[in-house]
């Protein structure tokens, strides 16, 4: 079984991103970049399936600038066998990314696609579902458990009310939630080995995908800032403030 894993280069989750002062875009010029945390969970899940003997090959794909090679190498250091970069300096919307992935899938014919449920920059939570629509594959989004057997994927999903389990006919798409697994750290020998693994590069144009944006960002601004309030001395003062000043309890 072949698994395709999509990974995205994003601003590291520890960086507090701010808008540029002219409000045209976010200021991330010198920000530390990393693999999107949900994508890392996706890679880990694929590697575990390979270690269990369920999967035989893992292909890591990324869409983005040339530097996204770093995130593909990270995925290969964790255990992906080879990589494909769809190189583009444009900001690609989820629909365009899904179209690129569809074209890759037409060449690679994976049995399972695993990707993060959302990237922590755009917070869209769309690409997996869109890829499902474009390829007619079923989707197990927000997964906290994945079992593969008899040509099916049984996926437990984190939903608002608790957990839901669905059964999907392969090939299928899984998007990862936080509790699916805890990604390993890449070992130094594996980081060295990853540098020698094959990494092909293509472009959206080569794949026949039009990436012209449909949604234009007119402005970015900081959210309304909350002012820090006061410290209360004890529980009695807290209850008094909540009752008589904020009037939120009675």
């Amino acid at each position, binding site marked *: 079984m072949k698994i395709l894993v999509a990974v995205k280069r994003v601003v590291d989750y520890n960086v507090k991103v701010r808008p540029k002062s002219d409000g045209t875009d976010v200021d991330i010029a010198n920000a530390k970049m990393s693999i999107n945390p949900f994508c890392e969970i996706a890679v880990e899940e694929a590697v575990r399936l390979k270690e269990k003997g369920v999967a035989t090959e893992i292909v890591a794909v990324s869409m983005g600038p040339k530097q996204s090679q770093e995130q593909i190498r990270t995925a290969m250091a964790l255990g992906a066998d080879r990589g494909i970069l769809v190189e583009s300096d444009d900001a690609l919307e989820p629909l365009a990314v899904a179209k690129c992935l569809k074209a890759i899938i037409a060449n690679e014919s994976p049995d399972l696609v695993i990707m993060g449920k959302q990237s922590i920059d755009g917070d*869209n939570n*769309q690409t997996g579902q869109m890829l499902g629509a474009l390829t007619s594959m079923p989707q197990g989004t927000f997964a906290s458990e994945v079992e593969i057997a008899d040509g099916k994927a049984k996926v437990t999903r984190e939903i*608002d009310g608790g957990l839901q389990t669905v059964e999907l006919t392969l090939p299928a798409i899984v998007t990862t939630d936080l509790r699916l697994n805890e990604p390993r750290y890449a070992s130094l020998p594996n980081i060295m080995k990853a540098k020698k693994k094959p990494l092909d590069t293509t472009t959206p144009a080569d794949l026949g995908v039009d990436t012209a944006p449909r*949604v234009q960002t007119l402005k970015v601004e900081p959210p309304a800032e909350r002012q820090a309030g006061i410290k*209360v001395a*004890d529980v009695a003062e*807290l209850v008094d403030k909540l009752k008589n000043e904020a009037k939120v309890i009675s």
Partner: protein
Amino acid sequence: MSILVIAEHDNASLNGATLNVVAAAKAIGGDIEVLVAGSDCAAAGEAAAKVDGVAKVLVADNAAFAHQLAENVSLLVAEIGKNYTHILFPATTNGKNVAPRAAALLDVQAISDIISVESADTFKRPVYAGNVIATVQSSDAVKVLTVRGTAFDPVPAEGGSAAVEALSSADDAGTSSFVGEELAVSDRPDLTAASIVISGGRGMQNGDNFEMLYKVADKLGAAVGASRAAVDAGFVPNDMQVGQTGKIVAPDLYVAVGISGAIQHLAGMKDSKVIVAINKDEEAPIFQVADYGLVADLFDAVPELESSL
């Protein structure tokens, strides 16, 4: 303008999130129709017809829609959606599961989690865990949006008398099936709808200690939430997580107990009207957003709080 609102429901009743989405639809302006896709869902359809401001309710009652599997519902939405200028989903796990799939079938770039309507094609939405608010404009003929409920006050559930029309669609992609679900059972209010929320973090140390929060919650009529750290550590189930990738809440009062205040947690609760933080670390970032901060050991403060209510 003709707007299709996709109802959130459990076949028997309408979920309150639908009322916030209708409010967003009103802010756009135009005829508002509601789609109830389910199985044996006539009751939910009737409830939708009573919602203030709804002109028509479409009920697609078929076994294929019983658990609102995205593969099937997205086919239905794409089939009827071409007739509308806007298709609005709640930004619930269900809405987020279906909306992008329907949008892609319509060749539309969806817009997630809108928090304001600037005009019929321009919306505001948070990005980067809410550290940045983007104003975005769609050039697609049909706008597919998910709506963050906390940003729109719900319309009244009663007062309307919309016509109900049955749809005969039975779209079944045949690629997915429902196996089962484990839903949290609680007498406390729903986390996203509660006017008071009390949440625990890593400082709670284990799941048993959440009992202290449940006692306070029951005195206040509050819901109980948790930080990602508490859920990851297995103290409490995932449906209690408040944050960037969990639930977004904006109650009148939010009490954060033993929560340090990571960016990802703040993204889920910083629009609360009044925030209280109880933490023994006075440097904890949660105090920077708290209206009332109490530097104290939660194991002393929470029982004292309970007994003084």
